[in-house]
């Protein structure tokens, strides 16, 4: 007897075959290179089993880049299809799959891991810690995210992609209208990755509360740390809602329950509520860390303290609080009534106030400063006007009656791309150029970086600015094609040109990375940009233990203070002797446990209960064996520290 869904297993289609071939070729070459250079052991020992937050951060960023490529290709396919009216490059089914994966991947598998990666790289260094609070859990977070993303992407070649949109509204996403495994991939891929994210939130929160260097009070923390702290709280409150929603829809699809179905008392609108109770805080989860990056970068390249530090902290908290009170603005048009719409409209507008405070504080951080236009700074600077445009149109969308006209139109699409690309992605690029030397010990090339910046920034506006107008012309999102004669054609063509411009710009970044690995300016001081926070107080890249001596802190901008401040004298380190450093052991279990999760969830996707059950059993086995492990940590000896600190151990 053939298992259920067996006939869905292999997807056909010329692009799928190309993808199949590419995946096989890429896998063969990776395996080949690793075998030829005898790097398997190195890969396992140094990377797959590591619990070092810096390496985990780098792996997050690497995976996020791969997902950026995938989501970007989806975007280009959409823009190619929409370039001219009545186009047949993609059919309806195919287009529906592509916009679903584009949205899901860009938000959950690109933006979030990119930011979690940067947080991992910088935050523990900025608070003067040796690692995060739970390094082992950190590895579990990484690998559950990674295999969640892998599971989701597998749908493209095995079984077929989900096609109900990244919002996955019931009943469209229910078993009646979306048969086949595609939607199951969405549910289980997201649930697995969400598990990792939730663990990250807890991990970062505890790290910041418990592991700050002596003297670093909450109000002395760098703004990036503050934004991580607030983001973690958002994650902890929001992600359980997603987990519940995904699980309930899985029950509907796999076990025939009627929670969101149209019949037997199911409530499709309940999905919409749950999704956005998570979804709105989620957009702040991907924007607040970018706010943090901006605060670091603008301060550093203006040579100034952050303007209005307390107001910045206050507005972060206000935004986080309000972000749980606005979710209905995603469906003003669902007939909740005038009172509900008024409440959620006004609460949404209120968010503009703390956000505006932040914008003005960033601008005034440059006041009486010395503004250096490095690539990292350019990205942060460009963030301000694009985010303001996105924010202003966001306020326009909050006007409930006006939203009846914008809802689901390209006006909305323009708005959130200004927030998520002009905000999050610009912030991420800023962070990458800024912390690149800290991650890899060399700077990225400035000329290539500026090409990347200008091309991307101009193309970005070319792509998304016309969308505002198209929305007002009545074009709605998720249309795979449109008839001629509506005045949409020229604007769509313009957007497609812009989209390819962005793709082209990204090649400059790739070339830059490859060029800089060989020729990039090495950062020998550890302080690549005349920085302000503690990550610049150690070598680039930082040693496994981050700081040979845990730094003492006497004020904000601790490293700047040590270099130039009035408290300089206090920081003068007496040549204290080294003491052995206590560090956690590497472990292969997080990786293996995520593999077991992956196998189990793959079984669930295809309703192969035996596979699902055995996989889960393996997961429990790994949890069980962990709880009996006694050999979990080690000491780094004084000799080894001396060797590293004298430069001998640096690659």
């Amino acid at each position: 007897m053939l298992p259920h869904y067996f006939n869905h297993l292999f997807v056909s289609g010329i692009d799928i075959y190309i993808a199949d071939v590419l995946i096989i070729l890429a896998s063969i070459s990776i395996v080949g290179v690793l075998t030829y250079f005898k790097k398997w052991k190195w890969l396992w020992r140094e990377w797959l089993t590591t619990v070092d937050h810096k390496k985990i951060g780098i792996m997050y960023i690497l995976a996020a880049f791969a997902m950026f490529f995938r989501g970007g290709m989806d975007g280009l396919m959409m823009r190619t299809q929409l370039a001219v009216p009545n186009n047949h490059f993609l059919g309806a089914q195919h287009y529906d799959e592509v916009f679903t994966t584009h949205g899901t991947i860009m938000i959950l598998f690109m933006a979030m891991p990119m930011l979690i990666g940067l947080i991992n790289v910088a935050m523990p260094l900025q608070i003067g810690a040796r690692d995060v609070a739970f390094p082992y859990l950190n590895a579990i977070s990484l690998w559950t995210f990674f295999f969640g993303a892998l599971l989701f992407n597998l749908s493209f070649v095995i079984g077929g992609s989900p096609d109900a949109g990244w919002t996955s509204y019931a009943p469209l996403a229910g078993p009646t209208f979306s048969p086949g495994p595609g939607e199951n991939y969405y549910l289980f891929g997201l649930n697995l990755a969400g598990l990792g994210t939730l663990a990250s939130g807890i991990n970062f929160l505890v790290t910041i509360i418990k592991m700050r260097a002596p003297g670093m009070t909450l109000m002395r923390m760098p703004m990036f740390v503050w934004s991580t702290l607030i983001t973690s709280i958002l994650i902890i409150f929001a992600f359980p809602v997603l987990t519940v929603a995904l699980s309930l829809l899985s029950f509907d699809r796999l076990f025939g329950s009627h929670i969101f179905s149209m019949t037997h008392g199911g409530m499709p609108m309940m999905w919409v509520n749950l999704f956005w109770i998570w979804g709105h805080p989620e957009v702040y989860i991907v924007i607040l860390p970018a706010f943090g990056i901006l605060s670091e970068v603008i301060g550093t390249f203006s040579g100034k303290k952050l303007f209005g530090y307390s107001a910045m902290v206050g507005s972060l908290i206000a935004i986080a609080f309000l972000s749980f009170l606005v979710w209905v603005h995603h469906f003003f048009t669902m007939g909740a009534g005038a009172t509900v719409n008024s409440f959620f409209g006004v609460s949404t507008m209120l968010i503009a106030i703390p956000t505006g405070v932040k914008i003005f504080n960033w601008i005034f951080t440059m006041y009486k400063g010395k503004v250096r236009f490095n690539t990292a700074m350019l990205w942060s600077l460009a963030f301000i006007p694009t985010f303001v445009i996105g924010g202003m149109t966001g306020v326009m969308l909050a006007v409930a009656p006006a939203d009846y006209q914008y809802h689901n139109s390209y006006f909305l699409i323009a708005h959130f791309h200004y927030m998520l690309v002009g905000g999050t992605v610009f912030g991420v690029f800023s962070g990458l150029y800024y912390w690149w030397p800290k991650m890899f010990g060399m700077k990225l090339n400035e000329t290539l970086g500026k090409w990347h910046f200008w091309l991307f920034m101009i193309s970005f506006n070319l792509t998304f600015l016309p969308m505002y107008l198209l929305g007002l012309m009545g074009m709605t999102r998720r249309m795979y094609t449109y008839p001629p004669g509506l005045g949409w054609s020229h604007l769509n063509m313009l957007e497609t040109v812009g989209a390819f411009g962005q793709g082209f710009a990204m090649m400059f970044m790739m070339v830059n990375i490859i060029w800089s690995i060989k020729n990039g300016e090495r950062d020998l001081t550890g302080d690549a940009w005349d920085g302000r926070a503690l990550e610049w107080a150690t070598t680039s890249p930082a040693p496994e233990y981050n700081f040979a001596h845990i730094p003492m802190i006497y004020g904000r901008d601790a490293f700047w203070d040590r270099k130039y401040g009035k408290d300089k004298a206090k920081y003068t380190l007496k040549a204290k002797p080294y003491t052995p450093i206590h560090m956690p052991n590497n472990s292969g279990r997080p990786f293996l446990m995520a593999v077991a999760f992956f196998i189990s969830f793959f079984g669930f996707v295809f309703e192969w209960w035996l596979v699902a059950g055995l996989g889960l059993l393996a997961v429990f086995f790994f949890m069980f064996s962990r709880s009996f492990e006694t050999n979990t940590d080690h000491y780094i000896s004084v000799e080894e520290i001396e060797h590293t600190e004298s430069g001998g151990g640096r690659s």
Partner: protein
Amino acid sequence: MLSPKKRRGLTFAALSAVSMLMLSGCGSQIAVLHPEGPVAQKEFNLIVWSFVLMAFVGIVVFGLFAYMLIKYRASRPGIEKTYDPNIEGNTKLEVTWTVIPVLIVIALAIPTVQTTYALKDPPASAHDPIEVDVTSADWKWIFQYPAQHIETVNYLVIPAGVPVKFMLTSVGPMNTFWVPELGGMEFTMPGADLGLWLEADKPGVYLGRGANFSGKGFAHMQFNVYSKTQTQFNQWVSTVKSKYPALTMNEATYLVKHQGLSPIMTFSSYPAASVAQNQNTQMGM
């Protein structure tokens, strides 16, 4: 900060930018900015008001931003003289840029709330409203006129100057019913009947479409709304009554259950059991 002269220049630039955008927005293809009925007009007024407020904010922010970039660039001669790394903030300024946005939000919130409540009620009119029951199916629009007891598929005829109460529901995935020139959209949801008031000022043809993704045929869920004078409308109803076939239960079921597009159709009557309103839960898909 900025000299009064510069400030006046900025204000002038702002006003001309706003008016230019508004003027270009009068092109009839930009449906939302070209309201053809009282509901769309109310929404348009709010759109313009929110745009003006935001344009004001934008100009202030962009101006300040450009000023800081130019004035405090590291390459400017004499930058060392103005450089002061120890500034931490300025309470007066921070209060200013908290209070002004609060005022702007109030200026926006009041008309927002007023209009939100106003749109609950039918637009003021000398005529009695008519009702059209709208059902979205995969992938077609079904319009039933309960008072006239006629049905159309994928096109709609309404009398101009008469408020129309649309009762919206769905027998499949959710969708939204949107005729931008007449007013904003509202969801169609299985198991729910949502109301939406629209009215056309004068006779004309307006394009409507489904705006919430509902599957493969979604992009084609487009329909025309023909607004006619009351006399023409009555004529049309009697023509439909006399010239078009009645909808049978079998056809009605096929329309609802068959996943596919549909040409425009007209029926002189429809079976009572085909009414989707208020009985979705029993329909059983």
